């Protein structure tokens, strides 16, 4: 799955996802990706976020919406992402998931749930301070 967040110079936000879902899913199954607030969410008044991982769990928590709401209340994007992951982790300690967050000033962050096979999450960043896309990594919590 790709989840993407874009904020332009005028602070207009957009977010999106595209996926072919889980391998060997039961036909008809849809995950978090096409669900607004779950796979991605954007609001010019606050910021935008996108999630990736096990969509059957993610969509129960609307993590992208929740992350944007945390940023609206003033949380730094990294903290917003971490709070969302922590909330899901309380219910599903072994769930596979990560979230990227950005606010309308251009600050960004990410977080993921640590598993034995998933200890770091890679994401891409391109902003006006860089002259090319850059891979960044966060340690999962």
């Amino acid at each position, binding site marked *: *799955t*790709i*989840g*993407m*967040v*874009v*904020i*332009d*110079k005028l602070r*207009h*936000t*957009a*977010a*999106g*996802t*595209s*996926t*072919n879902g*889980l*391998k*060997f*899913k*039961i*036909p*008809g*199954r*849809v*995950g*978090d*990706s*096409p669900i*607004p607030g779950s*796979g991605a*969410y954007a*609001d*010019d008044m606050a910021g*935008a976020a996108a*999630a*990736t991982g*096990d*969509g*059957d769990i993610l969509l129960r928590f609307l993590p992208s919406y929740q992350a944007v709401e945390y940023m609206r209340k003033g949380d730094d994007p990294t903290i917003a992402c971490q709070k969302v992951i922590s909330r899901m982790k309380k219910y*599903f300690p*072994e769930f*596979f998931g990560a979230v*990227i967050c950005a606010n309308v*000033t*251009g600050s*960004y962050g990410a977080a993921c749930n640590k598993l034995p096979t998933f200890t770091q999450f*890679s*994401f*891409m*960043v*391109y*902003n*006006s*301070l860089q002259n*090319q*896309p850059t*891979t960044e990594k966060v340690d999962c919590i």
Partner: protein
Amino acid sequence: SSRLPLVLNTWSFKNATEAAWQTLASGGSAVDAVENGCAVCETEQCDGSVGFGGNPDELGETTLDAMIMDGTAMDVGAVGDLRRIKNAIGVARKILEHTTHSLLVGESATKFAESMGFTSEDLSTNTSKALHSNWLAQNCQPNYWRKVIPDPSKYCGPYKPPDVLKQGTSAYKEVDIHGHD
């Protein structure tokens, strides 16, 4: 705000990031950038989890989900369980632009896509066919069924509910991190 514009995306899908950035640089909107960035991943089949020919379902079919949200207008277009159309994010954009709905699914979404000019074509590839064949050969393991007969941890379906429901089966099954939403 001096850090704006900003493109951020999950995983190391560099060409998608680049495409979104170039869209902004050439005067496109944030929504245009998301559409073009995701479309690159659909074409390139990013890590097999995006686009055609990846992650087949139990019947061997690849179906696509996509969503695009305009945070200025709070407008959304989304498509779920889309069949036989490669450009799922493009279809989501058409739903955003040309309907007042938010989410279309399944065969009806395909019909909508065709009416918008998208080509209907088989989304399977040799890779997805091989994945599916191997899964069948491994007695359909892993799968997402529980509390059915025959025992889904050992056998393929078709499955049906048992006469007496057993307690204690976990509601959560850890997924392969290489096959993600």
